[in-house]
């Protein structure tokens, strides 16, 4: 499989309104958020959820004209899948990287210190762990949502099971995170389970993408 920059640019062009909005929001959010970021920050979680849904929605509209167009230009299914994934990763970094740099290099802390925010700079030491967790959030949501549309476009029944599992995945952390008494080993175990899910969604998405039906 060769990298086809024009294909990547095509997908990124489709995504640019979403990414432009996401980048603006993420920068403003990171600069102006008046408290400090922890890994379980609900606003960040909502933002990542919406951004991931938007990315996969744009890349996975199987009934759209652009979709039908690009799938009939002679690219193999694997090339199309790879470039969609690359476009998704670039989109993530467009929103995540400026935020990560602002936090990691101290820009947010300095600005908030200037605003005389009581939490910063003292809590800045802890914010970087939230930044990595946001990346982890994207890593699990994007393969999952990509799987949802790929599964839905299969010529088989029970096409909604992908969506049902994503609902389960939405509910599980929502139910578990508020509890404070997680076992010390839980982070490692949950991380391992998440890694298995990411790998499963990615590999199965890749394989199923070969058999999806393009309709118009």
């Amino acid at each position, binding site marked *: 499989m060769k990298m086809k920059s024009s294909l990547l640019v095509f997908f990124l062009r489709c995504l640019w309104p979403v990414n432009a909005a996401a980048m603006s929001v993420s920068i403003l959010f990171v600069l102006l958020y008046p408290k400090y970021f922890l890994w379980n920050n609900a606003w960040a979680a909502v933002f990542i959820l919406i951004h991931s849904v938007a990315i996969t929605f744009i890349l996975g509209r199987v009934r759209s004209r652009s979709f039908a167009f690009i799938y009939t230009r002679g690219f193999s299914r694997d090339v199309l899948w790879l470039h969609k994934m690359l476009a998704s990763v670039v989109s993530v970094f467009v929103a995540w990287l400026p935020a990560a740099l602002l936090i990691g290099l101290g820009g947010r802390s300095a600005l908030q210190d200037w605003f005389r925010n*009581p939490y910063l700079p003292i809590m*800045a030491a802890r914010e970087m762990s939230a930044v990595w967790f946001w990346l982890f959030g994207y890593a699990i949501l994007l393969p999952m949502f990509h*799987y949802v549309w790929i599964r839905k476009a299969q010529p088989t029944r029970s096409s909604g099971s*992908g969506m*049902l599992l994503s609902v389960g*995945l939405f509910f599980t952390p929502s139910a578990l995170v508020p509890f404070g008494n997680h076992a010390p080993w*839980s982070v490692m175990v949950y991380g391992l*389970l998440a890694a298995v899910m990411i790998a*499963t969604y990615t590999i199965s998405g890749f394989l199923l993408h070969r058999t999806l039906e393009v309709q118009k």
Partner: protein
Amino acid sequence: MMHIFILLIGLPVVVLVGLRVLGFTRSRHKNFVAATAPAGSRISRIAECIVLLCIAGAFYLFTAATTYGIPQNLSLLPHGLARVQIIVAVTALLLLLGCVAITYWRASFGIVLAAIVMAGYGFIPDSGLMERVLPEAMFAPKVEHTFRMSGKFAGGEELWINNVYLGKMPLTITWDEFREKVPFMAEPPEGYKDENSRQPAEPWFQFTFWETKNLGGSRHSYVADNQQYYAKIKFNDQWAESRLGGGGGGGGRWYRQYEYSFGGYFPDREKLIQEDNRRFESLLQKARLSNYTVDSEWWQAYSTFDEGDLWTLRRLAKDEPGFVKVMDAAARLKYGFTAVDRQTAQAVFERICNEADAAMRYDAGGVEGWEMGLIFDMLDVNRLVADYSKALKSGRSLYSSKSGSHEYDEYWTYNHDPKNEFYKPVPASVSVIRHALHLWDKKLDAEQPHRDNLIETEIAPLYIAYRGDVGAAASLGGSLLEEYLLRQFHREPRLKGMGLDYEDREYTEGQYVNKWIYHLVQLDTPAGKEFRQKHSDITLQMAKLMTTSMHNHEKSPPEFVFSDLERGQKSLAVQYWPELSAAIDSSFPSREESKLQKRFQYLARMGDLATDQMYIDCWEKINLDQIDYPSQLIGILREIPRQRLLPLARYILNDLNKRNDQIRYEQEWFIEEFENYLICLGDDTATTAFLSSEPKEKQNRLDRIRSIIDQYVSQRDREDVAAYFAEQNDADLKILGIHYLRETPAPERVALLKTLAQDTDAAVRQAAERALNELEAIRQIPYELLVSLASTSVLPQ
């Protein structure tokens, strides 16, 4: 707010998706899949099974291991209930695996079924359902009672309770076993009552036992109920005399533990104890006789005693500073070095760390803690900071528990035993590092009080960021912390109340106060001082809150009111004095002498700012008719600085003479006893009057003087008293002085004894020579005869 937002958005989405997937709502697009098409490909089926397994697995593990109400350690659960929990967990696991199998066949159906199983498993173990279905006895907590004898050489004593022989102590027995063996007795057992006394007949005694009772109906209603039980203790065919005992304990919902400690006197054992105490005392005398210079032989003998840690020496050092030298030597001898260089310091530090890790505890007040004080500044502070930062960021508990004494609140013993701890603590060496860092911080603060040091810039912020422990950060200080507290104060300036947000409040003395103000007023830094000056009204209000709180029964003032004494009349201590004096009127204990003591303590802390008139005003508030014994007054006067004591005591004596009609019992004796105290303080008028008294009366008063010195004069002041007595032209006083000189024979006291051995009075000469001979005999005792009996002999069991 955010959770409501998520629920408003998330729930409708979830419901819509569910309806769509289950086919209750239709898509606007025509379904192109044939009705006969398979329900997913092999790949999708496998993928969905794996994902379901992961999601349900996370839920399952959380419920099985960490759900509220279910102990993580099944061994702490009552046996039957633990078995039920295991059965439920295994059943849920099998059902879950079944759901995964169904998912392979029909994904939507399997997923919904798995959700139902998980919800059920999450709900059943901690709901009332099990309580209704299972027998009530299954929910009874496991209760253990441990009985032991206190004191030296304890162990092996036989215990009877309510006439039932239970075994040799220390003895641990479960409540179920105890209940089965020992009957409750509404009336004492035969032989308990003594016809001639209100006390029980030998060898019986009564103690409070904590029974476990169910108040009925609910598994939450198991309570401890105290009942009187009757016990007797035997050791080596001797019944315990002067017996007493009691205990207490408690625990959680599933496991409770009660400890009972009995005191008692066995004639044979008492001889051993006396000999052991004599040996220990001789070791201390040897240290004094050698001008507090001790060698390895001394340390080897000393460390064979139970009391052979540093605590005994620390207590002695309060009155005899020479023992600080002994503590230094003990620490060096234990760790085997004389001069400190970087390499030795690092080696000793590592040894302390290793020993702490092996013992799973670190005693900052023990020899190891004292040793740290000797070597810390030879350790690499950057490395200490890096290691401690790692521990703070790890998220693990910094220790499992800590204990200390009111006597020395700066020294704590940190326990790092992970047993029964849900969140495993870091190794005990982290407490060693923390101690070293605190010592470094103090040193750096003393060198450059107005500049942030490495510990303040690196560690204090981490305490807040990773532990939310403002108190620990405040103990280090630093401008980052100060700025943090000040900004938080500007954000939330309200002083107290439930209206404060969770993050803004601190629970102290039974009330919620503003956390930021609470720490700012106590900050022992220039910024803290500035805050207290700038916001003196808030500071005084906080002091008032902390003093007048109903939980502060004694109305003890907070430390920070004494932090700016250099400001003279503008100092907080002076401004707060009227408030505190008024608060003391309603303090507990409410006895007159107790109130006077609290006022004198405060004035003593004020130092020179407290005038003689302030002391006199306090004295004049006292209702003399509430004072039964002069010793109550004499005990209080110990609080007063030595230089102010004599004039005030003279004033009190004059006042007692004036107000003698207010003294309830034996006015003359009361006043005479106070005169005796004045003699101990070196008052010439009182001494002259004493010396001119009749011989019989003089002897009687001499005994009372001795009693006053033993009870109310500190070791440090006894030296002055002995020197004063030695100067008098009276053989009896000189002989009493010799007694106290012999008691703590540091070289200068031995020199005084030698002078007295040349006295013109034969009785004085003899007494001094006897004391010198006794001391010489102690000096000559070989160390092998001074090791603890516990370490050398096989004690009878």
